[in-house]
């Protein structure tokens, strides 16, 4: 984006099937935006700029999941152009909410939404980027936390490991001194198995976590599903709880598919 870009690392932002919310986080980092733009060359970011520089790029931020043949090829090109490739958000990392098609007949979905289904070309499954190419780092969330994005860029520029926690939302919830909605109110809360990063917003707003940051490191999702059952949730409720924005992550998938077999 800037003309003085000779020695600055080049950043590219690629979009696949998504809502644009995660790449918007870069523009939403209002107080950091001009500083970031000063430290790096935002070389390819179509949502924000007409200027589109060719690769290779030092950092590629990938938003969205793969849902078309064309996109399955495009991600291969993107990978070849980027030294470090980072997925940003639940769509790129786990397939997103649109991965709910993976348990259904996509053709039926297409006929339901479009009057001429034969005009639409889409894959049977919505898949995360890592099912197609090696991914160097994942920024979680639906949407991502903009401060984690700024931290990731800053750490990469400094050549250090980004300080992004992999523990659960419960730790953030305690630190925020929010009342545990699972213990106090018996709500089905995904906090115990969900990676921190949002700041435990949902429990602080009096509702159960719905897991938008996806599975934490080594989650015991199956045990939490059993706990949900003890709290009086039926099978369908438990399946719906795990099957939202990170439904296709293998850890949540294992929990729901076990439950379906019972």
């Amino acid at each position, binding site marked *: *984006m*800037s*003309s003085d870009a000779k020695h600055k690392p080049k950043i590219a932002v690629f*979009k696949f*099937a*998504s*809502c*644009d*919310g*995660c*790449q*918007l986080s870069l*523009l*939403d980092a*209002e*107080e950091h*935006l*001009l500083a970031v*733009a000063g430290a790096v060359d935002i070389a390819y*970011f*179509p*949502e*924000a*700029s*007409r*200027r*589109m520089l060719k690769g290779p790029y030092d950092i590629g931020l990938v938003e*969205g999941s793969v*849902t*078309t043949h*064309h*996109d399955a090829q495009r991600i291969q090109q993107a990978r070849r152009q980027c030294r470090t490739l980072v997925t940003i958000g639940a769509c790129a990392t786990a397939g*997103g*909410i*649109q991965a*709910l*098609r993976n348990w*259904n007949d996509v053709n039926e*979905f*297409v006929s*339901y*939404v*479009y*009057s*001429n289904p034969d*005009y639409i070309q*889409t894959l049977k499954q*919505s898949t995360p980027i890592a099912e197609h190419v090696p991914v160097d780092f994942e920024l979680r969330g*639906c*949407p991502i936390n903009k401060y984690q994005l700024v931290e990731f860029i800053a750490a990469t520029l400094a050549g250090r490991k980004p300080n992004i926690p992999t523990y659960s939302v419960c730790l953030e919830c305690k630190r925020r001194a929010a009342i545990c909605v699972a213990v106090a109110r018996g709500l089905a809360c995904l906090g115990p198995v969900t990676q921190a990063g949002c700041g435990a*917003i*949902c429990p*602080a*707003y*009096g*509702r159960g976590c*719905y897991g*938008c940051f996806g599975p934490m490191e080594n989650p015991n999702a199956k045990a939490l599903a059993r706990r949900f059952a003890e709290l009086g949730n039926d099978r369908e409720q438990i399946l*719906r709880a795990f099957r*939202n924005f990170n439904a296709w992550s293998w850890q949540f998938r294992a929990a729901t598919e076990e439950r379906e077999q019972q």
Partner: protein
Amino acid sequence: MSVRASDAPKGAVTIRVDCLARVEGEGGLQVKLRGDRVQELKLRIFEPPRLFEGFLRGRHFTEVPDITARICGICPIAYQMSSIHALERALGVEIDPMTRLLRRIFYCGEWIESHALHVYMLHAPDFLGCQDVIEMAAAHKQAVNDALRLKKIGNDLVTLIGGREIHPVSAAVGGFYKVPARRQLEGMREALLWALEASLNTVRLVAGFHFPDFEQDYEFVSLSHPDEYPFNEGRLVSNRGIDIDVMEYEDCFAERHVRHSTSLHSAVRARGSFLVGPLARFNLNYEKLTPLARQAAADAGLAPPCRNQFKSIVVRAVELVFACEEALRLIDAYEPPVTPMAPVEVRAATGQAVTEAPRGSLYHRYRIDDDGIVVDARIIAPTSQNLRRIEDDLWSFIPKIASKSVDEMTWQCEQAIRNYDPCISCSCHFLKLHLERAPE
């Protein structure tokens, strides 16, 4: 922006822009020109379909606002509000008057954030001949810093009420999971007073831009409320006699599925294309604007009916003034709702709603069963409603600029499309430019 131009013999030119920048989502434009006549024009939308209506079926109605927010990261509140109002209407839920007021403040936050983003970061660079806001910042540092602060104030208001700016978590069928205390909202007063001044400056800045002479005979469509500039409620009206309850939306408007677009095209059944968004709201609800917003519009030389969509950037700035004033007024009137979450009795029912997203009217319809499970859903995004109108604009606009260079034509076509603040991610739930000049 990749532009491929090939000069074929006898003045035949092909322009192809593979990705339209500064819009939310993916699309492109394909144009065939003979002399200054457009022979073929297609706004190609290749945003991959995400099939929301498909997987909303089978979900519990309480989950719907969280899911539909994910259609658009720029205007998630609009998606939450249209789905919540549709479901509340289906279930006959009576909300607390203060909940209604708080939803209006919430919507003000989204309008401020989204309009500041579009006016400064996506649209103004076109008028100033810059590739993007970063390049613009070099010559207009103060304006860009003010824009970022203005946008942040909108985001802060949303975050205060909803927990975060993108995909907030507090809104629900029946009200809010948690509502702010009066003093928390009062804490936003000073920032909003600054934002109001910044918005007035924005009107002055954008009013000075050069606007192509391009007036069209639009059918403007927007919500209209007897006492308020519309956000959440009202009848759907137009300047050509539409005046309907939103329940009648699908009788009045039809969606067409065309081969070159994964977004559906809407039309008024009886006539054809129409326009939703700031220009429509301004022309149809001018009297409901605050006196200060009307004065700012008048000072900018803007009076209804404005038929130049390039001036939508000025209207957005006027709506910024309105949103700041309205938020301030509502914060003064706010007391926490007695029942933040109204009781909801589940039954099989159908409900529709239209609310005014920053980029235009957003229609939702849901049918749920006795257990509160969604069995049928329909969502018609503002950009779907505008797509046919954008194509109509380009049919008329391109002949006017056909003598220009390929690069200039390309940029001006993009600008004409960005007039609509198109949100392609939403409408598919957007753009490559392909211009072909055929031999005379």
